[in-house]
């Protein structure tokens, strides 16, 4: 029985698309048959992040309007043979699709795949509602800062109202040094406000920018800590128990010395 998971956040720019691309790839690496769907109609990005934008012929609006068959719109990933992308439409906007149509489309995808990951747009209006319409579960991505957490809280309330159950949380772009110096919220601070289960922590990583620009995902890179974090999250999605790496890198020599003078923390 396929599992449909929507990745959403409320706030824009916190890492939904990056997470969807990485988690889709990771699940395929674990041997699952996966489709990632871009539900951000009008502002599509998932194809770019995966390096597949020049292979798009049909998109999800074409499928819904009956201009093509579902198979024709699915794009096979460059690296993972069991990973497919269903791109969003770029020249339409979010009103092109209704919640019922999304649910129907998801039902079709359930027949072919073990996991359906839906990349949600930012916001709380129809784009978001369409993205969660067909979902069994929701994963919320937030960064450890006040406005993202505030928006995530709103989204969690909406997911509960739409009866999608308790979402699980990814805390993305954590900077352990700033957490130590008190300039950034810690994961505990975030969980204290949001009160949901944590499914993973991802550190701030410049390599994400490089990879995105190349249309690659980090989870394929064995030497990447970020990649490993995403792979662990994919494992947890499949039900495996994997301890969460708290991403506390060691204080630098300078930090330790100034810590001594400040009387330690």
């Amino acid at each position, binding site marked *: 029985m396929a599992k449909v998971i929507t990745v959403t956040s409320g706030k824009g720019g916190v890492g939904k698309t990056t997470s969807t691309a990485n988690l889709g790839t990771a699940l395929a690496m674990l041997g699952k048959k996966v489709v990632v769907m871009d539900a951000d109609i009008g502002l599509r990005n998932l194809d770019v992040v995966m390096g597949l934008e020049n292979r798009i012929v049909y998109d999800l609006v074409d499928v819904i309007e009956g201009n093509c068959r579902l198979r024709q719109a699915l794009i096979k990933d460059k690296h993972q043979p069991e990973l497919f992308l269903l791109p969003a439409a770029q020249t339409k906007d979010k009103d092109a699709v209704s919640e019922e149509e999304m649910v129907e489309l998801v039902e079709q995808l359930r027949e072919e795949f073990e996991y359906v990951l839906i990349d949600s747009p930012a916001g709380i209006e129809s784009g978001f509602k369409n993205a969660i319409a067909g979902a069994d579960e929701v994963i919320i991505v937030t960064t450890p800062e006040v406005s993202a957490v505030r928006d995530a809280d709103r989204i969690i309330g909406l997911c509960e109202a739409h009866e999608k159950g308790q979402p699980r949380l990814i805390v993305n772009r954590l900077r352990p040094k700033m957490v130590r110096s008190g300039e950034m919220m810690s994961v505990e601070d975030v969980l204290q*406000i949001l009160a949901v289960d944590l499914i993973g922590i991802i550190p701030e990583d410049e390599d994400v920018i490089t990879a995105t620009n190349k249309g690659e995902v980090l989870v394929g890179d064995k030497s990447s800590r970020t990649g490993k974090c995403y792979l662990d999250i994919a494992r947890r999605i499949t039900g495996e128990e994997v301890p969460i790496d708290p991403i506390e890198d060691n204080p630098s020599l300078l930090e330790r010395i100034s810590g001594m003078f400040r009387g330690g923390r």
Partner: protein
Amino acid sequence: MTDRVAIKGARGGVRVVIDDACSWTDAFNDIQHQLTQNAALLNGVKVSFELGGRMLAETDLQALQTIVTQHQVAEFELQTDSRELRQLARSLGVSARPVGLRTETRASDPLGAIVMRNLRNGQVLKHHGDLTLLGDVNGGAEIIATGSVVVFGRVRGTVYAGASGNREAIICAIDLSATQIRIADVRARAPEEQGDKFPEIACIEGDRIVVHEWETYRR
């Protein structure tokens, strides 16, 4: 007992709820009748007449004033949606407020209520009567209650107690880091600097909201 006029208890006084649909003449007769019947209850007490959106002529209002004083009601006020009526009332020396809270049930629960949940950003919890919340009020969430509000948790959103005008209402919380609190018609904003967290009680003293540390307040 008629349905046109109902007398209900409220914190600090009594509410006389007048049905929107009946004529003022009928309502007025019933009010007279009720005031006589319940003289003991109303003696020396503050009475609030809830008129909804109804408009009254000056003579009607004066007649109401007369019978109310005759029955030795200590203080009375009008709750009305009509700004015209509020202005008219005030010109006659009668205090008048807008109707603060509209919910489906107008009866207040004398026992208050205990609600066990966290309020998330964007959620609003409205309640007639006193409210105890076992949970947090996150930033962007609101509580609106006609009575007092006790939060056994953290308040980071807004709390509005005494929403229908009751200045006796209080707000307490284990962590009162609210963005804004309001009791009746008085607002307060959280100070810029928030130090250590401890339980606090907020109430109206004079014309302002004063927030006391629980430890010192209870002595």
